[in-house]
């Protein structure tokens, strides 16, 4: 375990605990027929969070020194592409409809993880996006965003 990152986590959690305590101060301290109001539980939890964050912070000083031999090769590039694609997928889901966005997302996803024969990826992405839409919407009466008017045949 890395001491510096854990110290960072401890600080973030400490702030979260404080925020919840401050936030719950505005809620009335008693509610009708009850001695304990809406503020009690969050305040207690906030205090606990602070105590535990401090404990974590103190513990980081007892961590043993890391051996730098094990170095993992992180692949942030692919992750970043997938992450942006996922965000775009979610944002465009309603405007462009389920079939198109899912098809595009899967195609990008397949090709990002491992470049290969494009036509297989296109075929798989097409089959999945269309069949999920039809099974869910037509057979199970579920709701998924429709395709835009100029692609009305997909609906």
């Amino acid at each position, binding site marked *: 375990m890395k001491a510096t990152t*854990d110290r960072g986590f401890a600080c973030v959690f400490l702030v979260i605990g404080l925020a919840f305590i401050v936030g719950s101060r505005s809620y009335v301290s008693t509610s009708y027929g009850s001695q304990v109001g809406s503020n009690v539980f969050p305040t207690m939890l906030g205090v*606990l969070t602070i105590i535990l964050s401090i404990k974590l912070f103190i513990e980081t000083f007892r961590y043993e020194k890391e051996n730098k031999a094990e170095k993992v090769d992180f692949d942030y590039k692919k992750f970043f592409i997938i992450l942006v694609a996922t965000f775009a997928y979610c944002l465009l889901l309603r405007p462009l409809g389920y079939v198109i966005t899912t098809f595009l997302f899967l195609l990008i996803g397949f090709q990002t993880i491992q470049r290969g024969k494009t036509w297989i990826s296109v075929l798989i992405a097409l089959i999945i996006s269309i069949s999920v839409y039809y099974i869910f919407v037509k057979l199970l*009466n579920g709701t998924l965003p429709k395709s835009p008017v100029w692609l009305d045949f997909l609906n």
Partner: protein
Amino acid sequence: MDVLEWLGLGFETAFLWHNLAFAFFGVLIGTAVGVLPGIGPVSGVALLIPITTSITSSLSPTEAATSAIIMLAGVYYGAMYGGSTTSILLNTPGEAASVVTTLDGYQMAKKGRAGAALSIAAIGSFVAGIVSLLGLILLARPLSKLAINFGPADYTSLMILGLCAVSGLAGKSMTKALLMMVLGLLVGTIGIDSVSGIARFTFNQPSLYEGIEFLTVAVGLFALGEVFKSIIERDYIHGKAVKVNSILPNRKEFKDSIPAIFRGSFIGFLVGVLPGAGASIAAFFSYSLEKKVSKTPEKFGTGMIQGVAGPESANNAAAGGAMIPLLTLGIPGSGTTAILMGALIMYNVQPGPLLFEKNPEVAWGLIASMFVGNVMLLILNMPLVKVFAKVVETPPKYLLPLIIAISVFGVYAVRLTLFDLMLLIICGILGYIFTRFDFPVAPFVLALVLGTMLEYNMRRALTISNGNYSYFFKEPMSAAFLILAALWIIVPFVLKMKGKKLIVNEEG
């Protein structure tokens, strides 16, 4: 009515054709989930909740709940069956509970006995499933009868015990686990307070009034988190599977594994009933027990059939045992059972002692369907071992983007809001960060599921006692639970301290 009559009623429910279909698809998908590396039982169950809710939407609420839980539980124990396949064929566990199976399973596969190892694992899982079900049937009524007299104070303390138990055993650092648990409880307070009707921590955002949806968080933290981890850490490139030849174990292998299967089943069941311990610890215990009772312990790790039979039985029995605290007390003991509980609550079915009174068809239907599901798994797994060995080779290239797409589909289909989709992605990123830095996510999800009930019961208890906190220690059951909870945290802590000293002594 006595147990047998209830069980008969359960079988009537389980044998309805649609419930048979749900059980079948549950165990089939579960096996696939267990076989596919990179997707474990927790994320498998979480991913399937939205799909089950949409499939069951035409049924009445109780029927829908029964069918959904039958399918989701099927995924859970199905995954325990499937997890052995990758351990044996690829030397990579399909889920955490099958880690020990790699030790001897892969060695057997290298010697050409892969088929035998796989079928012994399937038989062991079946026996274990039945053993744990018998335990469940025997313990369910007495436990729920005991729990039915619980007051709000007892419940509060029981939930605290459940939370402490899971956090005490999760991850490398108990402080981190406890932090995650408290954080989960805090996130659970977001939304409209059920007692006073005040909106808390919502910043006047209507999307927050209903609270943070547990389903979105669970799918994000577990399923998306795992996918992101696989991509970032290039976890998806793995070797070729060993070929499966004959699937039948020979006489000696069969004779050797029978006692191991029974020992594994009992250990697994006992460990599973304890909250927090779970399937991977059960498998580990069983492996070391097999090593202890064996006449040739030095041969373990070179392909001993007992090293496969014991742990594989144990992890399945633990999965069955974990259903006991969930169904009878309403306290899930692990990440997966927490998600099962969340699913039941989504259907307005409250797990706990009243479940057997109010919704006997849900409880007994589930129990009976687990018998059926285990038989299905055995039939599925023996002849289909070779097919699943092929599934192992599914290119991750297709799998990873597909899991993301299923997550988005599931969350959108149930919630229909962009807010939940964004929350899903954020939880996915957080899920990766948390696991990478050893902050266990299971206590968080468990706390999110239990939070509302914990606060509700605590405030009820405090109302009864006029705000006097010592009430929790004056009620005998409540006091006992609190003491147990404290022990659960303190004992591992002390053991750790002692363990440290021992290491220091050795070095000195």
